[in-house]
């Protein structure tokens, strides 16, 4: 909702058609596109120079790229600020997007679960958003594209005092700004 599909259309170049319907949450399209890790992996290796992403990709791969960019939340283990390896591809995709779109801006919103004191949890949320920020910068995003904010436990995604809610609340949300 925050990132314009017009922009996506640009980088996807020849595959604009595939990208067009992109921002909706029509999962079946993406599922077919992102089948397996293969398509996304292909995108990975080509992203390094930050140019021409998708131009040489197959239609399915573009869908995979799109699906990765649609993922906007990184979840963390208890008391951890290390980004789990499962988010490498997703963050690589966002990093490449930012690198190819210097005018794009995102805000990284760090959160913690409700256990412990509130201002300390602001610190934990900040640590998490900084961890995501570092990875995005390694992937080519520039510092001025990235801002961080930590809400600690103040804005839970899930209400409740159980492990399920806690695991949904320990997170960093990537927010594309207009």
């Amino acid at each position, binding site marked *: 909702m925050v990132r314009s599909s017009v922009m996506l259309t640009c980088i996807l170049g020849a595959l604009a058609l595939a990208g067009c319907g992109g921002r909706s949450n029509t999962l079946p399209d993406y599922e077919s596109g992102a089948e397996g890790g293969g398509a996304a992996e292909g995108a990975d290796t080509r992203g390094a120079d930050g140019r021409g992403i998708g131009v040489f990709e197959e239609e399915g791969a573009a869908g995979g790229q799109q699906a990765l960019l649609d993922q906007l939340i990184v979840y963390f283990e208890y008391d951890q600020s290390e980004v789990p390896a499962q988010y490498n591809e997703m963050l690589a995709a966002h990093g490449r997007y930012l690198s190819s779109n210097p005018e794009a801006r995102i*805000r990284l*919103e760090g959160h913690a679960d*409700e*256990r*412990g*004191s*509130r*201002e*300390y949890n*602001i*610190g*934990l949320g*900040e*640590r998490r*958003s*900084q961890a995501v*920020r570092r990875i995005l910068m390694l992937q080519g995003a520039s510092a001025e594209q990235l801002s*961080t*904010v*930590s*809400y*600690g436990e*103040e*804005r839970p995604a899930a209400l*409740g*005092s159980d492990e399920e809610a806690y695991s949904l609340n320990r997170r960093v949300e990537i927010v594309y700004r207009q």
Partner: protein
Amino acid sequence: MTEKNATARIEGPLRALRIGVMAMLALCAAAADAQLNIEIRRGVARPVPIAVVPFGWQGSGPAPFDIAELVATDLANSGRFEPLPPSDMIARPTEPVQVNFQDWRVSDVDVLVIGRLVQSGPDDYTAHFQLFDVLRGQQLLGFRLTSSGEDLRATAHRIADMVFEELTGIQGVFGTQIAYISEQRNAAGVARYQLIVADADGANAQVIADSPQPLMSPAWSPDGRRLAYVSFEGNQSAIYVQTLRTGTRQRVSAREGINGAPAFSPDGRRLALTLSRDGNLDVYTLDITNQVLRQLTNSPAIDTEPAWAPDGESIYFTSDRSGGPQIYNVSSEGGRAERVTFEGSYNSRPRVSPDGEQLAVVHQNQGNFRIAVVDPDNGLTQVLSNGQQDESPSYAPNGAVLIYATRENGKGVLASVSSDGLIQQRIASGEGDVREPAWSPFPRP
């Protein structure tokens, strides 16, 4: 409440700044929806039996306020007194000459309060009261207090404070206030955050700030006239200092990154606060008048939650430099920090008792987060509360009671405990979650 009228006047050396309607902050004080109610869970083993006889009334029309009822409620809420219900009173004296001590001895009452309210002008009242030791047949106190009609509630708290102090030797806190954060969600799940100030008994709850973005960490100035707090309006944290009487506020810190955990110095001139550079949290002090910033800690760890020692010489704070959060102490001029807590793997958010002898902290104990008090000289730790997620302890200005936040049936509620752990209360609100209570200083005359 004028939600649309969201323009706050920002004073001070920062350039004048208008808070847009987008922030939707209603800064005028408005009555809060959430009224707090105090319920005693555990009192002292033998509360003092007391009778507070309904006051006499001399004036036109019905009595404007039931002073005796509020005095009795205050004393009962302290957990240290057991008032005799008026229906069980076999006499109702309002003047000293009417007191027959034998009436009260047979009712097993140890102390007696009588009084009368006299109207001396259209909006001028004088409350007379006397406190008697029933067993010895002696008057202990006798006072006359004048007030307007609007201040009769405060007058009743003042009488309760005087009675409490005479009988316990501890200064009463019935006339103080509590600031806290309330969060309510509408049917669509959209949250609304409010900073509220209420009397210590929960009455007169007033909304001080109201926002769709989180508000947190309220902290009183030592004169009780201002509150510092954190607001996330505009998707960024900033620290504001708001004058309660006028509603005007000053944005004192909106630096890149985190602006959190404000705490006024004992002289009211500086704030200790948490800032982050490149995502690393450290504790600083900020002179509010000239904006001079001083960095007190410099570690790659999370350093936050500063609390001043009463003498202003040092600052306690939370740091996870040893791996998990523990309490440290550093000179308020900066320098090397010394670790204070060693019991348990999690100690955070210190608050210093008014006499400086004790710290209240959040302490993890067998998987539960509880309020504990720590002797800063030897690290000795005593757990006071028994919840699962107790947090945000705040000392009453007399040091005898702590208020804190806990969860009960999935709801955020406030609770209090005496600093010896003997008296426990729950303070529930009607709707939504309440949290982060901060007890005001004693009112200044």
